């Protein structure tokens, strides 16, 4: 560890965010860096909120033009929406704004339905699938020109994708600091030049206990699930914010939460959502860098990251070789490095 670790924990995105930074870097001291993270996240919250009428996202969603000038970060977000659709085969679809509003998620949720009650009232479990329309494919982004091209009426939901993107953008800014961890409401990016191993705990959606602790130096992590934002819709049916793109209705697949590790927080977010939506049979296939799956019955399965062996460790078990500190991955997987 290099220098004191500074921790800032605050409300943002209708949830909790935090920055844990040690040592000085390009942004300044650790204290400067946590202040920078907080300022950026609070600013992005006001620009990307679907619930604020004057946010950049709300203005974009209302804009009747097909070609709309957008900020560089909004252009990156739109590109992330395309990437999410493409990587997940359409399972992670951030264009389902009308559907999520119809399901009842049209404002900040204060009172959430208990997970056990939602599961008891839920319909038969089945995996979600892509919407035939695949509206995300109609998005075209020109980042150099700062323009977004899409059919008028196609709306974007910032949701978890924006949080993953924000963690990655902040991670780029903090790359020269010895050690950092950015938590954007559950989407994490851990890194730093010192490659300090950091414990990453995965919380149970049922009782908040720690289900598993990964210890990694550089990784993106995201947790997605139906445990926190659930409610009863107008018809009295349980609803939540993870929709089956094919039906436009909340998906009950047999998985209540998935945590994914990946090289970036954005990719982790996409993989976590895809794992929840694809159901118990296909979920492990989305967690190629590791993760944790929590099932309806409360049981969970840990999928380990690619194991890492340092040359120093190897040397201890073979012949001592001075100066061998470089880390190698025994199996492919940048998340574990």
């Amino acid at each position, binding site marked *: 560890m290099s220098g004191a670790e*500074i921790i800032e924990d605050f409300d943002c995105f209708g949830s909790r965010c935090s920055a844990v930074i040690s040592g000085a870097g390009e942004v300044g001291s650790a204290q400067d860096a946590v202040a920078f993270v907080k300022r950026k996240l609070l600013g992005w919250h006001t620009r990307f909120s679907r619930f604020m009428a004057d946010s950049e996202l709300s203005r974009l969603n209302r804009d009747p033009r097909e070609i709309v000038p957008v900020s560089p970060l909004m252009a990156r977000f739109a590109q992330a929406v395309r990437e999410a659709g493409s990587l997940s085969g359409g399972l992670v679809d951030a264009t389902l704004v009308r559907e999520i509003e119809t399901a009842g998620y049209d404002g900040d949720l204060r009172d959430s339905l208990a997970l056990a009650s939602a599961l008891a009232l839920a319909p038969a479990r089945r995996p979600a699938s892509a919407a035939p329309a695949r509206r995300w494919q109609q998005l075209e982004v020109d980042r150099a020109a700062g323009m977004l091209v899409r059919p008028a009426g196609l709306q974007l939901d910032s949701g978890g994708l924006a949080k993953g993107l924000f963690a990655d953008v902040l991670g780029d800014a903090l790359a020269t600091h010895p050690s950092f961890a950015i938590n954007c409401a559950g989407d994490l990016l851990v890194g730093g030049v010192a490659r300090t191993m950091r414990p990453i*705990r995965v*919380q149970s*959606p049922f009782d908040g206990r720690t289900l598993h602790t990964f210890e990694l130096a550089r990784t993106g992590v*995201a947790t997605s699930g139906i445990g926190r934002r659930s409610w009863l819709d107008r018809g009295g049916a349980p609803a939540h914010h993870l929709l089956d793109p094919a039906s436009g209705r909340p998906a009950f697949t047999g998985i209540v939460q998935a945590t994914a590790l990946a090289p970036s927080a954005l990719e982790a977010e996409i993989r976590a959502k895809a794992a929840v939506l694809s159901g118990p049979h296909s979920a492990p296939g989305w967690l190629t860098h590791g993760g944790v799956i929590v099932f309806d019955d409360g049981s969970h399965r840990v999928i380990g990251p690619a194991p890492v062996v340092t040359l120093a*460790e190897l040397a201890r*078990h073979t012949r001592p070789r001075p100066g061998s500190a470089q880390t190698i991955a025994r199996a492919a997987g940048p998340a574990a490095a």
Partner: protein
Amino acid sequence: MRRRARRIRRAVVGLAVALFAATFLVVYVQLASGHDPALVANAAKRRAASPSVTSTEASAAESSTATSTRSEASTGSEESSSGASAVTTSQS
């Protein structure tokens, strides 16, 4: 006599090759599945040295904003053996 010697030689060589291949396969599977016995011992030592895991959510949720240095640990963050505070991922 010569034929018998050849037969015995072949049997010995075949047995040796089979024994080597079986041993190699066992070691390969063991290492490839991430269960290197030497590293398991190391991991066990590291686990024993690190502090126990506790949830920080309750204390963190009490105030809307909290800033601290690690030594104060007002957020209840757990440190690893490397000295880095733990972070928690949960549904947002």
